[in-house]
C-alpha cells in the first residue's frame, strides 16, 4: 500500500481523473458565465479557463481509455449525429427568426388602431419631408452643402426595453413610409446622458414608477442636431402633432384681449393663467396681447382672439371691432364669469356680459346665444360646495370636442348660456353646438347674493333658471366648408377652469386632465390646427375609469370565485368516484 493510499484510503488514479474532469468542467462553465456577464476576456475568465482546460487535460492523461471508450461508444456515435442535426434545426430556426424580423409584418387588432399609422399621418410626413427638400434645394443653390433629414429618437433605459419594443412597432411604420430617409434610433439615457440632455430628455414619473421613455423628432444636418420636438408617449397622434408643430411653427397667432380687467396670462401662481398661454406656445402657436382701444381693427395676423374673464363691459366701439373681425372670418373665445364679485377682484362686481349690454346683445342678435345673469348651482355636486361643478356632461359630437377623451373635468362659479329656440334668418346662418352641460341636478341661481351670504342655494321655480344648464357652446357657419369665410366662436360661462390651478398647479401635480384637454381641444379647433391633425380619436371610452356597482362586483365574485372553481372540482370528484367504482 502506497503512502497516498494510507492517507486517503479510497485513492485511485481513476478517482483523481474523475475529480479533475468534474472540476475542469465546472471551471469552464464558470468561465463562460463570467465572460458573458463581463463581455471581456478578464483575468478571472483566463484563470478559470486555465483551471478548466488543466482539469480536462489531467483526465485525458490519467484515464485515456475512458475517452477512447466514450468516443467509440454507440451512444456517442448516434449522439453526435443527433447533436449535429439539432444544431442544424436551431440554425434554421434562428435564420427564420431573423427573416421574420426583417419582414416587419404586424397586424394591429386594437379597436382604435393604436399601432397603425393612418393616411393623414403619412400625408403630414410627406408634407414635412417636401419642405425639407425645398430647404435642401435652397441651400444647394446658395452653394451650401447640406444633408437635412429627420430622425425619430427614443430614450429608453435597460429597464424599459419592453416599452421600447412596443414603441418600435409604431415608429418603424414611419420609417417605412418615409421617402426622405427618416431614421429611427434608440439610446439608453444612462449610457448616453449628454445626448439625452441635449434632447431635453427627462424621466417621467408616475408616483415612483418610470412610466415611459420619451420619443423625439429631431432635424439634423449631417450629424449636427438643428431642432428637436418632444413627441412624448409614442402614439400616432403625438407623432403627428410633433410633425405639425415643426411644419406649422409660427403660422398661427392668438391674441389675448386686455383693457377691460381681463385675466393676466403672465401670472404664474395658481390663480394666474400663464399655463394657458404656455400650452399654446408648446403647439407652435404664437401668443400676444391686444388692447382694442389702441387699434383701429383687430390685426390680420390674428388667427383667434381670447377674451378671458373680463370684469368690465365692452363699449359699442369695441364690439364693432370684434364684429368686423368675425365678419372677416375671425375666431373668438369668450370666457365670462357670473356677474358676481369673484375671488380675483372682490371689490368690484363683475359687469361683463350683463343681459342687455352691447356685447351680449350682439351675440344674441347675430348668433342666437347670450350669457345669462345667473350662477349655476348643483346640489348633487360631489365637490365641497354646490358651485364647484362636477359630473359635467360633455358632448363629444360637438366639433371642438371631437378629440375629447371622457375624463373628469371641473368648473367653478359658472354662469349658463341662453340659446335661441326659433332662430331669425340671420341667426339661422350659424350652427349652435352645445359643448358642455352641467349635471342634470343643476339649476341657474338668479339670487347672486347667496354666495356672499354663504347660504346654500335652493331652487326657486319662479325666479331661477330651470332645465339643462348650458355651460359652453360652439358657433360656426352652416355648411362651413362651402363658405368663403369661416368664423368660429366658443362661449363659456366660466374662466376659472382655465386657471393654472386646474391646468398646471404650482405643487407639481397634474391638474385636472379634463380641463387640460378641453383647452387643448378648443385651441386646436379655433385656430384650425385640428383640421390639419386629422386623426380621428373622437371617442376613447377605453380611457374611462372602471365603474361597477357593489351588486355587480358581488355577482362577479360569486361566479368567478365560487361557481367556476366549484364546477371544476365537482366534475373532478365525479370522475374520481366513477374511477374508484370501475
Amino acid at each position, binding site marked *: 500500500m502506497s503512502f497516498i493510499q494510507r492517507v486517503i484510503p479510497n485513492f485511485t488514479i481513476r478517482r483523481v481523473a474523475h475529480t479533475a474532469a468534474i472540476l475542469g468542467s465546472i471551471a469552464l462553465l464558470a468561465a463562460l458565465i463570467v465572460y458573458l456577464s463581463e463581455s471581456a476576456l478578464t483575468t478571472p475568465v483566463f484563470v478559470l479557463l486555465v483551471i478548466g482546460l488543466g482539469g480536462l487535460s489531467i483526465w485525458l492523461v490519467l484515464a485515456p481509455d475512458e475517452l477512447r471508450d466514450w468516443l467509440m461508444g454507440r451512444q456517442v456515435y448516434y449522439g453526435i449525429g443527433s447533436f449535429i442535426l439539432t444544431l442544424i434545426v436551431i440554425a434554421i430556426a434562428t435564420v427564420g427568426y431573423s427573416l421574420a424580423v426583417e419582414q416587419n409584418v404586424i397586424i394591429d387588432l386594437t379597436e382604435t388602431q393604436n399601432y397603425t399609422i393612418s393616411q393623414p399621418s403619412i400625408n403630414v410626413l410627406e408634407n414635412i419631408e417636401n419642405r425639407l427638400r425645398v430647404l435642401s434645394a435652397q441651400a444647394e443653390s446658395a452653394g451650401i452643402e447640406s444633408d437635412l433629414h429627420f430622425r425619430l429618437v427614443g430614450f429608453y433605459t435597460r*429597464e424599459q426595453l419592453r416599452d421600447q419594443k412596443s414603441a418600435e412597432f409604431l415608429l418603424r411604420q414611419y420609417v417605412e413610409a418615409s421617402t426622405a430617409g427618416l431614421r429611427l434610433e434608440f439610446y439608453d439615457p444612462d449610457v448616453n446622458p449628454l445626448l439625452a440632455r441635449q434632447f431635453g430628455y427627462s424621466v417621467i414619473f408616475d408616483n415612483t414608477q418610470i412610466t415611459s421613455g420619451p420619443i423625439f423628432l429631431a432635424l439634423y444636418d449631417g450629424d449636427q442636431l438643428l431642432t428637436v420636438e418632444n413627441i412624448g408617449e409614442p402614439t400616432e397622434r403625438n407623432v403627428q402633432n410633433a410633425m405639425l408643430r415643426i411644419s406649422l411653427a409660427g403660422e398661427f397667432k392668438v391674441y389675448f384681449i386686455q383693457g377691460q380687467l381681463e385675466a393676466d396670462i403672465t401670472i404664474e401662481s395658481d390663480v394666474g393663467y400663464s399655463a394657458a398661454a404656455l400650452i399654446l406656445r408648446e403647439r407652435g402657436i404664437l401668443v400676444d396681447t391686444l388692447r382694442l382701444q389702441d387699434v383701429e381693427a383687430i390685426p390680420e395676423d390674428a388667427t383667434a382672439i381670447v377674451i378671458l374673464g373680463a370684469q368690465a363691459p365692452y363699449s359699442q366701439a369695441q364690439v364693432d371691432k370684434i364684429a368686423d373681425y368675425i365678419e372677416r372670418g375671425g375666431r373668438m373665445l369668450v370666457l365670462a364669469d357670473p356677474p358676481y364679485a369673484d375671488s380675483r377682484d372682490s371689490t368690484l362686481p363683475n359687469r361683463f356680459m350683463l343681459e342687455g349690454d352691447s356685447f351680449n346683445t350682439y351675440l344674441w342678435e347675430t348668433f342666437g346665444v347670450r350669457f345669462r345673469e345667473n350662477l349655476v348651482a348643483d346640489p348633487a355636486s360631489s365637490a365641497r360646495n354646490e358651485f364647484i361643478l362636477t359630473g359635467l356632461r360633455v358632448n363629444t359630437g360637438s366639433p371642438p370636442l371631437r378629440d375629447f377623451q371622457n375624463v373628469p373635468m371641473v368648473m367653478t362659479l359658472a354662469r349658463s348660456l341662453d340659446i335661441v329656440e326659433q332662430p331669425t334668418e340671420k341667426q339661422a346662418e350659424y350652427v349652435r353646438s352645445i359643448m358642455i352641460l352641467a349635471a342634470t341636478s343643476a339649476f341657474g341661481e338668479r339670487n347672486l347674493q347667496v354666495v356672499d351670504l354663504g347660504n346654500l342655494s335652493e331652487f326657486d321655480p319662479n325666479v331661477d333658471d330651470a332645465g339643462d344648464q348650458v355651460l359652453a357652446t360652439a358657433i360656426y357657419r352652416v355648411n362651413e366648408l362651402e363658405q368663403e369665410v369661416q368664423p368660429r366662436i366658443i362661449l363659456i360661462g366660466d374662466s376659472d377652469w382655465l386657471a393654472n390651478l386646474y391646468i398646471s398647479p404650482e405643487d407639481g401635480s397634474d391638474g385636472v386632465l379634463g380641463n387640460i384637454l378641453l383647452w387643448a381641444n378648443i385651441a386646436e379647433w379655433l385656430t384650425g390646427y385640428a383640421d390639419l391633425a386629422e386623426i380621428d380619436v373622437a371617442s376613447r371610452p377605453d380611457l374611462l375609469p372602471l365603474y361597477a356597482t357593489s351588486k355587480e362586483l358581488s355577482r362577479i365574485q360569486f361566479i368567478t370565485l365560487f361557481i367556476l372553481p366549484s364546477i371544476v372540482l365537482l366534475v373532478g370528484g365525479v370522475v374520481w368516484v366513477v374511477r374508484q367504482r370501475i
Partner: protein
Amino acid sequence: MRNIWTIFKREIRQYFVSPIAYLVAFAVLLLLGLSFNTDLDYRVANQLRPDATLVLSNFAFLMVFFAPLLTMRLFAEEAREGTLELLMTMPTRDVDLVIGKFLGAWVYYCVLLALTLVFEGALLSITNFGPEGFPLRSRVDIGQIIAAYIGIFLYGGATIAIGLMFSAMTENQIVAAFLSMAVLLMLWVGDIAGLVPASILSTEVVEALRVISLQSHYSSSFLRGLIVLEDMYFYIAIMVVSLFVTTRLVESRRWR
C-alpha cells in the same frame, strides 16, 4: 397521422379521467379568480381604467409552474413504469409518439384557457355590455383581448413543448418538473433582465436574454393587441426545436 391521432386520444383520455388535471384546473382558476377580483375592486375604488389582459398575464405566469405539472408524467412516468419501451416496440414512429403526447397536453391547456373566458365575460358585463347611463361605462378593447388569447395559445404550446422535452430526459417526474420549471422561470424573467445592474449583466447579454425570453414575445405585442410575425414565429420555432430534441431524446433509448 393515424398513430398521432391514436396517441393523442389516449393522452386526452388520461387527462380527463385523472383527478390531478381537475385539481390543477381548480388551483389555476382559484388563483386567477383571487387576482381578478382583487384587481377589479382596486380599479373601481381608485377610478382606474379596466385591464382586460390581467387574467391572461397572470395565467401566463402561472403556466411557468403548472405546465411542468401537466407534462412531467408524459414520458418520465412511461419510462419509470417500463411502458415506454413497450410503446417503442409498436409500429409507431418516435415523432408520432412525441407529437401525439404534445397535442394531448396542448388541448388540455386550451380547455383550461377557454375557462378563463368566464373572467373576460364578467369584465365585459360591467364595461362594453354594461347598463347604459351615468356614469358612463368604460370599454375594454375586444381586439386586444383576441390578440392576447392568440399569443397565450402559442405561449402555452411553447411551455408544454419545453416541459415535454424535460420529461423525456429523465425517469423521475419530480426532477422533470423541477428542471422544466427552472428553465421556464429563467425564460420568463429574461424579459426583466434589464433590472439587473449593468455591473452584473452587460446590455448585450440583457438584449440576448430578452430575445430568448418567452414573456418578451408576448408582453410587448400580443398583450397590447398586436399580432407580430416574429413573435408568432418565435413560439412556433420553440415548439419545433423542443419537439425535435424530445424526439431525439426518445430515440436515444434505442441506442442504449
